[in-house]
């Protein structure tokens, strides 16, 4: 299938893009790695593609005050290779390497994945455990929303008409944290059946903060608060304790079934990947402690 006729508007600034997005049927074209196949297969239609790829500075990745800011057109491969991010937030790179294939990551953007809001998106889970905040610009001005509030359901967000995400702000975990992303897929780099992102910090060998996020286990990626609460005080070496926390995810899982996995299988695998991610993150936190 080929794309239907569509207009292409090359935006010069964010204001220009936001103004063009007010037109009915206007869609943002950034990496296009999800949008173009959808247009080509006629799964979706749009009247004008507002191309933001040439807006100066929108691809910036910066770090300051314990946060990283990733611009709207920052390519996934560039973000994965960013030395500061991969040092302080390796969970992002570990999840990012599971996304599609490298040629797709060379064009696809991190924000594109978040805005596409695929329930199976690995980057959504990784950004959730990094307390991601979406920065948006639109007719009403600038606003921010947590990624959790931004996600509204399968392929749905709370982005308003004419709004464009310009950046995402990520909280960089403390030094010595243990981080992990684990997913289950049918074949190497096929879509996630279930995936879990974990960031743990510990004091004296016991967990004092925990972030656990799932993909493939609900209508959108989500943080498991029950699991996070259950992890506080659990020793890094207490595998049964970590597994009990992972098991709580089963009650929260309401996966959207598709060709890659049934709801029942996804829900059961969500617990498995969470368990594996917790064990891995805990081991990494323990190792960092030993090396410190």
């Amino acid at each position, binding site marked *: *299938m*080929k*794309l*239907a*006729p*569509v*207009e*292409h*508007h*090359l935006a010069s600034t964010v204001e220009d893009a936001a103004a063009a997005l007010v037109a009915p049927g206007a869609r943002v*074209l950034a990496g*296009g*790695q999800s949008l*173009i*196949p959808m*247009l*080509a*297969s006629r799964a979706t239609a749009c*009247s*004008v*593609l507002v*191309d933001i*790829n040439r807006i100066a500075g929108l691809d910036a990745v910066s770090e300051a005050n314990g946060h990283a800011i990733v611009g709207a057109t920052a390519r996934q*491969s560039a973000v994965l290779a960013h030395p500061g991010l991969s040092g302080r937030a390796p969970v992002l790179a570990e999840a990012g390497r599971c996304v*599609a*294939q*490298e*040629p*797709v990551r*060379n*064009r696809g953007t991190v924000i594109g994945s978040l805005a596409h809001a695929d329930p199976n998106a690995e980057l959504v889970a990784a950004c959730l455990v990094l307390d991601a905040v979406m920065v948006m610009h639109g007719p009403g001005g600038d606003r921010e929303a947590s990624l959790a509030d931004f996600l509204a359901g399968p392929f749905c967000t709370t982005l308003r008409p004419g709004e464009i995400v310009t950046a995402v702000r990520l909280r960089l975990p403390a030094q010595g944290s243990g981080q992990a992303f684990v997913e289950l897929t049918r074949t*190497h*780099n096929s879509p996630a059946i279930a995936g879990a992102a974990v960031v743990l910090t510990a004091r004296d060998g016991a967990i004092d903060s925990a972030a656990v996020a799932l993909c493939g286990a609900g209508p959108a990626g989500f943080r498991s608060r029950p699991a996070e609460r259950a992890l506080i005080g659990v020793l890094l070496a207490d595998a049964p304790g970590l597994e009990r926390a992972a098991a709580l995810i089963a009650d929260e899982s309401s996966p959207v079934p598709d060709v890659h996995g049934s709801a029942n299988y996804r829900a059961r695998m969500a617990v498995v990947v969470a368990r594996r991610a917790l064990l891995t993150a805990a081991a990494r936190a323990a190792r960092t402690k030993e090396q410190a």
Partner: protein
Amino acid sequence: MTTPPTGARQTLTLNINGQDRTAEVEPRTTLADALRDQLRLTGTHVGCAQGSCGACTVLLDGASVRSCLLLAVQAAGCRVETVESLAQDGQLSTLQQCLSDAHGLQCGFCTSGMLMRATELLRDNPAPDREQVRDAVGSQLCRCTGYRFIVDGILAAADRLSQKGVENGRPFAAAVTTRTEA
């Protein structure tokens, strides 16, 4: 840049394999279709048209991309390299010859994508190990060969290129070999 009316054809100038070429495209025309239909560079193949199979892989400013997921208009001002850039004066490049010698192709449909991924890999990493080659070609679907001979061919090319070095002042991808050297 002036945006033409909705969906209208425009004359686009693209830099393909070091040459400026013009093509009549609509905004919806993918780079893959522009290369194949307008520029008659049919070495780039369209398999799934969804970005999964990788048969359409070309290099854009040196990085591998899915040309079926790029609009032709988006490639304006960028350097596009296709499989046609590898052979010189009708002679297969070292990479192509080694892939052929290793029986790294059968139907050939995935081959152009494999060659462009290998070209990118060997530029970044002239002496990859087997795992690194497997990782690179893992982005490309091959239904014929089982990948082993593709990996063998790329490793052989890396080996031979490290012996031959750079030829004619051009990067290895344009290094030339002939059958008589085999």
